[in-house]
C-alpha cells in the first residue's frame, strides 16, 4: 500500500517535471549540452549540394553522470545556419523558443537513442541553399519534446563551420525550352503583323 502510493507520488513528481515540456514551449537556453557531435568536414571545407557527402558522429558526453540520458528516446541531427548566413535574412533567425527558432532547417537523420557512439553518412540534399553551416543534435523524450542537444561548433557558433555550395536549379533543357518559346512568341507576332499588312495592301 505504501509502496503503491510511493510510486504514484514519484510518477507525479516526474510527470510534473515534464509538464513544461509537454505543453510544447521549450526554450533552447533550458537545454543541457550533454551530447558530443562531430562532423567530418574540416573547418572551412566547401561541399557541393547533391554530390558530396559527409559523416556525422554523435553520442553522450561521458563526463556527465550516469542516468542523464534516461529520458532520451530519439536523436535528430540537423544542419544549421552559421550566423554569417543569417545576416539580413530574418527567415533564418535564431530564437530561444524552439518552436519559433529557424536556425536549423534541414534534417540529416532521425534515429532512436542509444548510449554508444553512432554515425551516419549523409549526401547533401539538393535543396540546401548556399551558406555556412554547422551540425546540431537534439535529444527528444517520449513526449517528443527537446531535452538536450550537442553541436559541432562552440557556443558562439564561430568554430568548425563548413560551407555548402547549392545547385543552381538551372538546366540546359529548361534554357533551350525557354529560348524556343520566346522565339516563337516574337516570330508569331511579327508573322501576324506582316501577313495582315500584306493582306491589307493586296485588298486595296
Amino acid at each position: 500500500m505504501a509502496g503503491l502510493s510511493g510510486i504514484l507520488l514519484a510518477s507525479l513528481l516526474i510527470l510534473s517535471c515534464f509538464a513544461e515540456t509537454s505543453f510544447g514551449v521549450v526554450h533552447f537556453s533550458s537545454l543541457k549540452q550533454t551530447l558530443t557531435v562531430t562532423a567530418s568536414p574540416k573547418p572551412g571545407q566547401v561541399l557541393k549540394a547533391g554530390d558530396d557527402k559527409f559523416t556525422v558522429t554523435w553520442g553522450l558526453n561521458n563526463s556527465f553522470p550516469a542516468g542523464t540520458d534516461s529520458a532520451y528516446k530519439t536523436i535528430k541531427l540537423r544542419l544549421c545556419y552559421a550566423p554569417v548566413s543569417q545576416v539580413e535574412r530574418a527567415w533564418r533567425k535564431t530564437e530561444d523558443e524552439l518552436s519559433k527558432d529557424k536556425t536549423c532547417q534541414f534534417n540529416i537523420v532521425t534515429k532512436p537513442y542509444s548510449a554508444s557512439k553512432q554515425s551516419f553518412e549523409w549526401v547533401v540534399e539538393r535543396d540546401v541553399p548556399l551558406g555556412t553551416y554547422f551540425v546540431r543534435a537534439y535529444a527528444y523524450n517520449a513526449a517528443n519534446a527537446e531535452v538536450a542537444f550537442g553541436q559541432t561548433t562552440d557556443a558562439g557558433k564561430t568554430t568548425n563551420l563548413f560551407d555548402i555550395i547549392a545547385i543552381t536549379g538551372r538546366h540546359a533543357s529548361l534554357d533551350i525550352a525557354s529560348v524556343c518559346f520566346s522565339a516563337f512568341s516574337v516570330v508569331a507576332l511579327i508573322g501576324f503583323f506582316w501577313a495582315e499588312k500584306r493582306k491589307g495592301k493586296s485588298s486595296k
Partner: protein
Amino acid sequence: MADRTTEGLGEPGSSMHGVTGREQSFAFSVASPMVPTDTTAKFDLPVDSEHKAKVFKLFSMANPHMRTFHLSWISFFTCFVSTFAAAPLVPIIRDNLNLTKVDIGNAGVASVSGSIFSRLVMGAVCDLLGPRYGCAFLIMLSAPTVFCMSFVSSAGGYTAVRFMIGFSLATFVSCQYWMSTMFNSKIIGLVNGTAAGWGNMGGGATQLLMPVVYEVIRKAGATPFTAWRIAFFIPGWLHIIMGILVLTLGQDLPDGNLGALQKKGDVAKDKFSKVLWYAITNYRTWIFVLLYGYSMGVELSTDNVIAEYFYDRFNLKLHTAGIIAASFGMANLLARPFGGWASDVAARHFGMRGRLWTLWILQTMGGAFCIWLGRANTLPLAVFSMILFSIGAQAACGATFGIIPFVSRRSLGIISGLTGAGGNFGSGLTQLVFFSTSRFSTATGLSLMGVMICACTLPVTLVHFPQWGSMFFPPSKDIVKSTEESYYEAEWTEEEKSKNLHQNSIKFAENSRSERGRRVASAPTPPNVTPSHGHV
C-alpha cells in the same frame, strides 16, 4: 452639332476617357432616344451611330463588342499574373539565389516601376497601331521576359527580369483604349471600371496559381530550385495564348477596319501642350496622384510581400500562404466597384463633399486596418485585418476615380494617366522604405505603411472646388465662381472660347450639377449662359 460619341479618338489623353469608371452614369445600358440606335447595323448588341455598343452584356461573347471586353480584361489579368508571379514563390527563390531582404525589396520595387514609363508609351502606340496591336505587341514581346526567369542565377538578374516583366502592366492602357472604341461613352464608365478591377484580380490569382503549379511540379519529381523555374512557364504560355487570341479573334473597331481609325484621327485635335499644362497646374491633380499612391500603390506593395509575410510569421505551408495572399487581391472583384458605388451614393445626398468624405473615410480605414495587420499576432486576427485592409484600400481606388472626372474636363485623360502612374510610384516608394530593410521586420513595415497611408490621405482635406466646396468648407459665395461653368471654362483661353472650342466643357459643366447633392434643384442658372434645351 458634335455627337459626344465621335469625340476623342486620336485626341491627347482620349485613350483614358472612361477609365475613371464614374463618368456621368453607372448604367448597364443607354436607352434611345438618349443615344439613337443604328437600326441598319447587324450586331448582336444594339449599337449607336458609330457602331459602339449601347449595352454591356456581361456573360456574352458576342463579336465584336463583348468579345473585345473579355479579350481585353483577360490580357490585363494575365499581365498582373506574370508581374506578381514571383511573390508567392519568394521563400524558394530567396534560397536558390541567396537573396537578402534588400534584394527581395529591390526586386519588388523594380516590378512596379517599369510600367510607369511603359504606360506613357502605350498611349502613343495605341494611337499609331491601334489597341489590338498595342495589346498584342506588349503581351507577346513580354513573354520572353517571363521565360527569362529560367536563366536567373543572381539577385541582379532577378531584379532585372522582374523589372522587364513589369513593363507588361501597360496593357491597362490598351485595355481601356480598346473598349472606348467599342462601347458608347455613356456606359464606358462601368465597362472600364469592371475591366480594371477584374484585371487587378490577377495579382491575387497568381498567389494561388503559382504555389499550386510549383507543388505539382515538385510532386512530379523536380527539386525545389528547378521547380520554381518551370512554374514560370505557365504565365509565359498564358502570354503567348492571349496574344494569339487577341490577334486572331480581336478587331480594332466594331466594323473591323484599322484604316478607318487612322482617318478619324483627322478630327480637330486639342493641343497636347495645353492639355498637359492644365493638368499639371491644377493642384488637385497632384493631391490625387499622392492619394492613389496610397490606395493602389499599397495594394501593389502588399501583393508583393503578403505571401512571404504569412509564410514566415505563422509558419504556414507555401500554398496555404498563397491562398491567404490570394484573398487579398481577389477582393478587387467586389471591393473596387463598391468604392465607386459608395462614392455615387454619397454624391446623391451630399454632392462632391460626400465623395471627398467617402474617399477619406475608406482610405483612412484601410490604413488603420493595415496598422492592425502588422500588429496581429495570431493567424485568424491577421487574416481578418488583412481582408478589411484590402476592402478599404481597393474601395478607396474605386472612390478616387469617382472624383477624378470632375477635376478637369479638358485634361481628364492626362490626369487619369498621372494618377495611375502615381499608384505605381507609391508602390515603389513604400516597398523601398518599408520592405527593403532589415532594420525592422516586415510586420513593423506593414504597420508603418498603415501610418503613412493615414498621413498621406490627409491632403484630400485640401481639395476645394469653388462650385461644390471641400470637406470642411462650403462652396464659394461668389455668384460667378460658384458655377460649374466658370470652373471648367477656366481651362480655355479667351481666344479658344471665341472659336467655341470649349463646347464639350460647357455641356459637361451642365451635367455635373449633380455634384451639388440635394441642392441641384435650387442651383440658379448662372449669368451669361443660355439654359440648355435638354441633355444629350
